[in-house]
């Protein structure tokens, strides 16, 4: 039987304003590039981002804007021809970009865990799911095989896998999409990471399962005081699950701030476009959606000036020549020459 009620917290984890502390994760001027026949793909192009202890930060933008490559740069798991060529990623006093392969192995799955959009690509099809969870704990937490098994069973139960003892020796193809994602979450949480990177963890799932998974991640994060970077293209998920939000376009940040401030008073025309593209409860049937025209730019040959100008309804000569930098507006920051005046509240 289902139950009424909600595990959603009434109050967000933090109030969304930047606390006066040293960030847990600090990305400075990150440039991640791919050398291809067409030229250099600037997947991440000067991104700076702070993540504070205990908060959930949403990273949003259209596909191809560099969200996944940001996460993979942090994990140092970029695909073959990709490289973080400049910048710093500071975590617990270390610049991850300078860590040795050996150090990174310890950090991955230990202090920093990642949940991927397609769990099948991240799980081993030939190993039972029980082994996959317990093996990580044997390595990172130095548990004995028996201890790891017990803990893995607890975790499976905790993430909502029914009859975990029977499912322990199953293979991943025996699970549904939602169950696979639960297994991924069990693995991610198994070594009590301080930082969780979740890359579109629910994009492939039904809304009902999506709600279950988001609540589960939030609950586990709150229990353990973990910090999370939540990558999504859906502003609705940001609204329901994040404290702060950072909007990315063409490999850079164009706006960030507390969720309420950014979603209710978006300053950047791109953020306004992303929000307007999603039908709301206020829209009447038959209304036209506010849509962003055109496509994201080719990352091999970015336009001069503001990268958004070819699609921006407000663009003028200055936009086409000079690139705007992030400026503070109230509690948020936006990079646009023509930030809208604040809506009266």
């Amino acid at each position, binding site marked *: 039987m289902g139950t*009424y*009620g909600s595990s959603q917290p009434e109050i967000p984890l933090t109030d969304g304003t930047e606390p006066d502390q040293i960030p847990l994760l600090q990305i400075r001027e990150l440039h991640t590039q791919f050398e291809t026949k067409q030229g250099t793909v600037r997947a991440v192009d000067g991104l700076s981002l702070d993540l504070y202890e205990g908060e959930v930060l949403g990273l949003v933008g259209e596909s191809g804007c560099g969200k996944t490559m940001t996460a993979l740069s942090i994990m140092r798991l970029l695909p073959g021809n990709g490289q973080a060529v400049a910048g710093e990623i500071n975590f617990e006093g270390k610049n991850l970009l300078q860590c040795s392969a050996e150090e990174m192995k310890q950090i991955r799955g230990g202090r920093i865990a990642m949940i991927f959009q397609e769990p099948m690509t991240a799980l081993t099809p030939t190993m039972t799911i029980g082994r996959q969870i317990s093996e990580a704990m044997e390595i990172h937490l130095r548990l004995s095989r028996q201890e790891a098994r017990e803990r893995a069973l607890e975790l499976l139960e905790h993430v909502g896998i029914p009859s975990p003892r029977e499912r322990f020796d199953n293979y991943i193809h025996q699970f549904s999409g939602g169950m696979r994602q639960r297994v991924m979450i069990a693995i991610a949480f198994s070594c009590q990471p301080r930082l969780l990177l979740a890359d579109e963890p629910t994009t492939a799932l039904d*809304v009902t399962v999506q709600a279950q998974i988001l609540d589960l991640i939030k609950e586990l994060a709150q229990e353990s005081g973990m910090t999370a970077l939540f990558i999504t293209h859906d502003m*609705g998920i940001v*609204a329901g699950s994040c404290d702060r939000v950072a909007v990315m376009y063409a490999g850079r940040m164009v706006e960030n701030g507390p969720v309420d401030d950014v979603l209710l008073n978006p300053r950047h025309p791109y953020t306004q476009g992303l929000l307007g593209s999603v039908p709301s*409860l206020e829209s009447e049937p038959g209304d036209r959606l506010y849509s962003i*025209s055109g496509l994201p730019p080719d990352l091999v040959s970015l336009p001069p000036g503001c990268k958004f100008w070819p699609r921006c309804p407000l663009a003028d000569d200055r936009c086409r020549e000079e690139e705007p930098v992030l400026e503070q507006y109230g509690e948020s920051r936006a990079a646009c020459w023509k930030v809208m005046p604040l809506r009266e509240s």
Partner: protein
Amino acid sequence: MDDQPLLSVQDLVKHFRMPRRNLLRPPDVVRAVDGVSFDISRGKTLGLVGESGCGKTTTGRTILQLMRATSGSVQFGGTDLCQLSDKELRNFRNGMQIIFQDPYASLDPRMTIGKAIAEPLMIHEISKTRDEARERVQELMERVGLNPYFINRYPHEFSGGQRQRIGIARALAVDPDFVVLDEPVSSLDVSIQAQILNLLQDLQDEMELTYLFIAHDLRVVRHISDRIAVMYLGLIVEQAPGLEIYDEPLHPYTQALLSAVPWTDPRLARKHQRIILEGEVSSAVNPPSGCRFHPRCPIAEERCQHESPALREIQPGHWVACHLA
């Protein structure tokens, strides 16, 4: 509904017989669609929603006779398509088209998009000559927001949103009355989703198209539909005018679905009481007895396990299948 519906589906059933796994037992039957009825008036949109595997695609494809129904009828402009032979059906093919979720899979990678859009024109002998077809293709491309300059390019040279425009142009080439849209924007970015939704609405107005819009994003469905039907395990459990179902969902399953919608207003997101459905959809091979939703229903009673609730008209035009509604 005020006027004669263009499409009227009655008690539609589609079962799939699975290969026999055990010779001592009868073969498994997947009851993908198990008695579905609805009408769609000309120029209107019915939104069909429900979790993965509940039978939405099967419903759409069976209506178009892309697969034959196990039983039931599909009246299209007064003719029961289920009774027609394959040959007789050919005359109706132009009138009905389908647009898929994955535009890439539905386009031949070795065919230029000009040829792909022209194909239905030539097959159905709508354009008599090549030049005529070419002219019509250019017109269609412009209409769906593609630059006719790209007529000789191949599908892989286009983005997802552009490929969906190609799919739309191809479907509209034969000037249909009725279009099944099966998750037409699910694989697209929100920004591109909005462009395509606007396009579909404009085309509907101009061409008086009738849509069956299949989707699982209830924000999108609310935006585009006149009526909405909610499916669960092969059955429609609630059907009502669009806004009414959002304002006053009467079936516990609809209530749960709506409570999980990620609206973009953070105040709404926090205020919303989520109804978390436990477990997953039951199997369509052995659907639960009584009300098929009872194993997950938060308010199920004893009789829900034995008696299956009939669809009842609770308010004018608002149908619900629940003992307690």
